[in-house]
C-alpha cells in the first residue's frame, strides 16, 4: 500500500511540475506580466508542496500505526478474556492474531483469538482507509494552497529556497535526533534496571553473574530473590577487565604508534612517508571481526603453546592475546594523530634547539614532544576510548566469565563482551538481565563521551596555541 501511495505521490508531483511550468507561462503571456521567477521554479514549488507534506505524513503514520494497532488489539483481546501475565505473553498472543489474519497460523484457534483476528482485520482496514483518505486530503489541500500562490505570481524561487533550506536544516538535525535516540533508549531501560538494582550495588559490586537473574517479573520480587539479584550485577570486574585489556593494548599501541609517528614526521623522506603511512593506516581499515578471528584462532593458541613449553598455564582466551591484537589495531590511531600533531609544531622551535647544538633526537625529546604533548595526550585518549568501546576482538578472543585478575595470561571479560553475550539470541524484555546490558551501554557511552571530550579539548587547545 505504501509503495502504491509513494508511486501516486511521485506521479502527481511530476505532472504538477509540468502543469505549474506551463501554467505560469500562459499566465505571463496572457496577462502580459513579468514573472517573479523562472517558470521552472513554479514547477518546483508545486512539487515540493505536493510531495513533502504527504510523505512526512506517510512516514509518521507508518511509524505509529503498528504500535497503536497493537495496543488496541491487545486491549480488545484482554476485554474478551484473553489471559496474559506479562508483556511477552501479550506479544505472543498478538503475533498469533496477526498470523491468523494472514492465514499463516496453523495451531488451535479458540473463540477469543478468532474474535481478535476479526477485530484486527477491521482495524487494519480502518487504518488503511483513513490513511489513504487523509493523504489525499493533505495533497489536495496543499496543492490548492500552492496553486493559489502561483496564480498570484509569488516569488517562487525564494519560496522554493526557503523550503529547501528547511530541508537542509532538518537533515542536519538528524545528528541531534540520533544522539537523543541513543540517550533515550539507553536511559529508558537503565532506569528500569536501576529501579531494581541499587546504583551503588551496581557501581561497587565485585561480582558479575547476570545469569543468576532468572527473575522475569521485576515488580514481584521476594526478599530472598532480591538479595540474590543484589550481588549479581557488580560492575567492578567488568571495568577492571576492560581497563586491563585496554591497558595491554595501549602498552602495544602507544610506543609503536608514537615512535612511528615521530619517525614519519621528523625523519622519514617524503617517499618513505608516502608509502608507509597508508600501509599503517590499513591496520585501521581492517574490520575488527578479522582481528578477532586472528586473535582467537592464531594468536591465542600460539600463546598457549608457548606458555605450555615454558611451563606456564595460559588460558586460550587470555587477556594478553586480546590486548595485543587490539593494540595493533589501534597503532594507526596513535601514529596518524601524533604525526599530524608533531607536524604542526612550528619549525622555529626546532631551529632554536638546533642552533644551541642539540642533536635531532634531543630536539625531539626535549622540545618537540613537550610542545606537542597536549595533542599527543589527546590522541592517546582517543585511542583509549576506541579500545574500551571495541567489541569484536574481545567477544571472540577474551573470556566470558567475569573474574577479577591482573594476570594477563588468565581470561577476563569486558563491558562490550557482556553486552553482546546478554543480548545475543532471544532476550526476555523486562528482565533485569536484559536491562543490565543497557545499563552497561549507558556506562560505556558516558565513559567514551568523557574521554572524547577531554581529548578533543586537549587537541583543540593545542592547535590554538600554535595557530
Amino acid at each position, binding site marked *: 500500500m505504501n509503495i502504491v501511495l509513494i508511486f501516486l505521490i511521485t506521479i502527481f508531483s511530476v505532472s504538477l511540475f509540468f502543469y505549474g511550468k506551463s501554467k505560469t507561462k500562459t499566465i505571463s503571456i496572457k496577462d502580459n506580466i513579468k514573472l517573479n521567477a523562472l517558470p521552472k521554479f513554479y514547477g518546483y514549488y508545486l512539487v515540493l508542496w505536493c510531495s513533502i507534506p504527504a510523505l512526512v505524513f506517510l512516514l509518521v503514520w507508518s511509524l505509529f500505526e*503498528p*504500535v497503536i494497532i497493537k495496543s488496541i488489539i491487545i486491549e480488545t483481546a484482554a476485554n474478551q478474556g484473553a489471559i496474559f501475565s506479562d508483556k511477552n505473553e501479550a506479544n505472543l498472543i498478538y503475533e498469533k492474531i496477526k498470523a491468523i489474519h494472514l492465514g499463516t497460523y496453523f495451531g488451535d484457534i479458540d473463540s477469543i483469538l478468532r474474535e481478535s483476528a476479526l477485530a484486527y482485520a477491521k482495524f487494519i482496514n480502518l487504518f488503511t482507509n483513513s490513511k489513504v483518505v487523509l493523504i489525499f486530503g493533505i495533497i489536495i489541500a496543499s496543492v490548492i494552497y500552492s496553486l493559489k500562490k502561483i496564480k498570484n505570481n509569488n516569488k517562487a*524561487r525564494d519560496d522554493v*529556497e526557503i523550503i*529547501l*533550506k528547511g530541508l*537542509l*536544516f532538518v*537533515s*542536519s538535525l*538528524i*545528528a*541531534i535526533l*540520533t*544522539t537523543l*535516540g*541513543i540517550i533515550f*533508549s*539507553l536511559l*529508558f531501560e537503565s532506569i528500569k534496571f536501576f529501579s531494581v538494582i541499587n546504583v551503588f550495588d551496581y557501581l561497587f559490586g565485585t561480582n558479575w553473574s547476570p545469569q543468576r537473574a532468572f527473575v522475569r517479573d521485576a515488580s514481584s520480587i521476594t526478599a530472598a530473590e532480591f538479595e540474590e539479584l543484589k550481588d549479581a550485577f557488580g560492575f567492578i570486574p567488568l571495568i577492571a577487565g576492560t581497563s586491563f585489556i585496554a591497558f595491554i593494548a595501549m602498552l602495544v599501541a602507544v610506543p609503536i604508534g608514537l*615512535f*612511528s609517528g615521530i619517525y614519519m614526521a621528523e*625523519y622519514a623522506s617524503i617517499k618513505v612517508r608516502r608509502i*608507509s603511512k597508508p*600501509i*599503517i593506516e*590499513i*591496520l585501521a*581499515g581492517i*574490520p*575488527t*571481526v*578479522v582481528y*578477532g*578471528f586472528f586473535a582467537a584462532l*592464531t594468536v591465542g593458541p600460539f600463546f598457549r603453546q608457548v606458555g605450555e613449553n615454558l611451563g606456564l598455564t595460559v588460558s586460550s582466551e587470555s587477556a594478553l592475546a586480546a590486548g595485543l591484537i587490539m593494540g595493533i589495531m589501534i597503532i594507526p590511531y596513535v601514529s596518524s594523530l601524533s604525526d599530524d600533531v608533531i607536524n604542526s609544531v612550528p619549525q622555529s622551535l626546532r631551529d632554536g634547539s638546533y642552533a644551541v647544538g642539540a*642533536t635531532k*633526537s*634531543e630536539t*625531539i*625529546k626535549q622540545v618537540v614532544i613537550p610542545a606537542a604533548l597536549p595533542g599527543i595526550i589527546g590522541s592517546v585518549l*582517543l585511542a583509549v*576510548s576506541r579500545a574500551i*568501546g*571495541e*567489541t*569484536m576482538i574481545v*567477544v*571472540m578472543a577474551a573470556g566470558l566469565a567475569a573474574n577479577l585478575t591482573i594476570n594477563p595470561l588468565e581470561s577476563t571479560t569486558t563491558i*562490550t563482551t557482556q*553486552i*553482546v553475550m546478554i*543480548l545475543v539470541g532471544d532476550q526476555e524484555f523486562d528482565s533485569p538481565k536484559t536491562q543490565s546490558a*543497557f545499563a552497561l*551501554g549507558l556506562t*560505556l*557511552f558516558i565513559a*567514551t*563521551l568523557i574521554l*572524547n571530550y577531554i581529548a578533543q579539548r586537549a587537541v583543540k587547545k593545542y592547535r590554538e596555541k600554535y595557530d
Partner: protein
Amino acid sequence: MTKEERLKKRHRAEKRFRFYGLTSIFVALLFVVILVQNIFSKGSSAFKKTVITTEVFFDQELLEIQNGASQEEIMEADFYDIMIENLIKAYPAKDRDEEDELLKLFSGDAEIEIKKAFLNENNLIGKTITLDLTASDDIDQLHKGNYPRDLPEERRRISDFQLVIYDYFVENKKISKNFNNYFFNNGDSRDPELAGIGGALVGSFYSILICLLLAFPVAVLASIYLEEFAPKNKITDFIEININNLAAVPSIVYGLLALQILLATIQLPRSTPLVAGITLALMTLPRIIIPCRASLKAVPPSIREGALAVGASKFQSVFHHVVPLALPGTLSGTIIGLAQALGETAPLILIGMVAFVVDIPSSPVDPSSSLPVQVYLWSESAERGFVEKTSATIMMLLSFLIVMNFIAVYLRQKFEKRWN
C-alpha cells in the same frame, strides 16, 4: 668524560632513537604482512572443493519414472535409492557398516547433485553417466592436507577404513579438486562442505545499499547546511558537537539504539538487512558528514563570490558551483564510510543477524546474514572445514574493502581540483 666521548654518546643515542622509530614502523608493517599472509594461507583452499568421480546408473525400477518425464515428475521423484545403489559401488565394501562408512565420504547433498544432473540431461534412464560428487568435509580437509592422518584412529574424524577408501580413490584418480561453486552460491549450512556466503553476500549488499540510500543524501544535505547556510549560533554549535561525538561513539551503542528503537518500538522485522541498513546508516552518517564538510570547505570562497557577483542566489551559487566541485571528495568520503560500514559487526549481532539462515534473502525484509557476521558465526564453529571457509570469507570481505578504498582514492586523485 671528555667532550669527544660525550659527543659520541650523544650520537649513539641519536642513532638508537632513529632505530626505535624505524623498528616501530617495521613492526607495524610486519603485522600487516603476517595477518594477510595468515588469512590467505588458511583461506585460499576454500575456493576449491574436493569431488569424487562416481559412475551413476539410472535404474528405472528404482526411480519409478519414465523417460521423457516432465520437470515436475522428476522434481518429485525420489533419488535416494539411486544414490545409495550407485555410491556403494564406488568401493567394494564388505558389509553394512563398511557401506555406511563409505556413504559418509560423500556430502549430504549427493542426492540433489544426482537429481540435478538428471534434470540437465534428458532421457538418462537406463544409462550410466560419470558425475563429480562433492566429498564430505572430512575427506575434503584430508585431501587438501589440512588434516593430519598420522593421529591415532580414535582422535581422528576419519576411520582407518575410510582412509583405505580414500587411498583407493587417490590411486584410481577418482578424487580431484574442482572450483567450489557452493561457496559462492549457497547460504549457510551446518555442513562445511555445503556452506557458502551467497546469503551473506546478498545480505551485505542490501544492507550497504540501504545504508547508502539513507546516509548519503542526508549527510550531503547536512554538510551543505552546516558549511554554507548555518548561522553561527548555539544550535549550529550544538549540532557540530553532536556530530563529532557521534563519530566517536562505540558501534555497539548503535546496536543498542537499533534494538530499542527499531526493533522494540517501531517493530521492524528482526535479523533483516532493512534494520541493518538503517543502523549502519545512523552510524555512518557522522563519519560521512566530516569528510563532506572538509571537501566543501576546500572549495575557495572566490567560486562562491564569482557566482554571487553575476547575480546567482546563494542557493544557486552553492548547488550549481560549490557542490559539483566538492563532489569527488564527498563521494570518496562516502565510499570510505560505506567500507567501514561493510566491515561492521557488533551492531548487527545485536539486531539478530546471527540467526542461522539457510535461504538466500530475496528482499531486504527477509532474515539474512552479512559477511562480517558470517565470519563471526563460522569462527565459533568447531568443524575444521569452517576455518578455511572463515578465512576465505575474510578474503572476500577484504577484497571488497580494497576495491572500495581504491575507488575512493581514484575518485579523489582523478577528479578533485587542487586549489592553490
